[in-house]
């Protein structure tokens, strides 16, 4: 099981949960598993070409996957994955 932190803007898809669990040996597999439990999540994370959207970052154990192997970054039991989209707001 991989613990996945869901950011505020995506919580409507996870019935308000800020942390969910999913299975998979890579970031892409975990996202696929998440989408099967919480339909629509994948579409919020990927663009039309199936690449991660440019304003969404994914961290594995607080390390940016762009500096690892991107979507193919391997995950193992107990790893933590965080989805971190940009937020604005301030006024």
């Amino acid at each position: 099981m991989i613990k996945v932190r869901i950011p505020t803007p995506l919580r409507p898809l996870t019935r308000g949960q800020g942390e969910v669990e999913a299975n998979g040996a890579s970031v892409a597999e975990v996202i696929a598993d998440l989408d099967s439990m919480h339909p629509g999540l994948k579409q919020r994370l990927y663009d039309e070409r199936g690449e991660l959207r440019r304003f969404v970052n994914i961290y594995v154990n607080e390390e940016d996957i762009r500096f690892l192997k991107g979507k193919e970054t391997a995950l193992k039991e107990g790893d933590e994955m965080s989805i971190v989209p940009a937020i604005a707001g301030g006024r």
Partner: protein
Amino acid sequence: MDFTDEQITRYSRHILLPEVGGKGQKKIAKSRILIVGAGGLGSPAALYLAAAGVGTIGIIDSDVVDLSNLQRQVIHHTRDLARSKVLSAKEKIQALNPDVTVVMHEDRLTSRNALELIRGYDLVLDGADNFPTKFLCNDACYFADKPLVHGAILRFEGRVTTIIPGKSACYRCVFKNPPPPGLVASCQEAGVLGVLAGIIGTIQATEALKLVLGVGRPLTDRLLDFDARRTAFREIKTKKNPNCPLCGEHPTITELFDHEPETCAAKS
């Protein structure tokens, strides 16, 4: 510049700090800080920076005070409804601390005015409420070589990071582009816990004062994320991105431009 007896008393709790002292307080008194947005983040930041004795506080905002602002924009009072935010903020700052010079910029930050404006200050505190302005602040501070303290709030979540241009990760190193309109909700559509503005805005003010004083370790290469529901802070490591379109090895952004305004950030 020498402090009067009254000023020594006013700033005594700062002067007592070995990290500040009279010397540090003089640095604060000589500092010039630009606050972008006199709103949720800008309000507490402006009040604390004013109380701290920042010499010059510039505030840029083109809005007037709306009733829905008062739940979190604590520099504005009920009697300020429909008045200019910049003017309302100036009055409160001067009532709090007449030592502070307030420069009012009743305008929106745009690619045309940003550089000239920012060059007149030592650092910028981003309290804007929309992505185009946040990216513009980032780009303008990079070109003007001024430190930027970024903040953002939404619902129960807030973020802060400090950017030293060319030295630490910039906002575009982390998020290359604003999301397309409608994909990420703004405060106006999604709501925000008012007090979150106070928490995040005062952390931004803390970062600004640390930079002025040259004290401690700035919040660079770290994105601080606060979740009010769990009362939990978390640090996300960020890194200068060699592929950053602004500060990377082969930049594609070589001058300021305005991102398309978001439909969801429309004026209330």
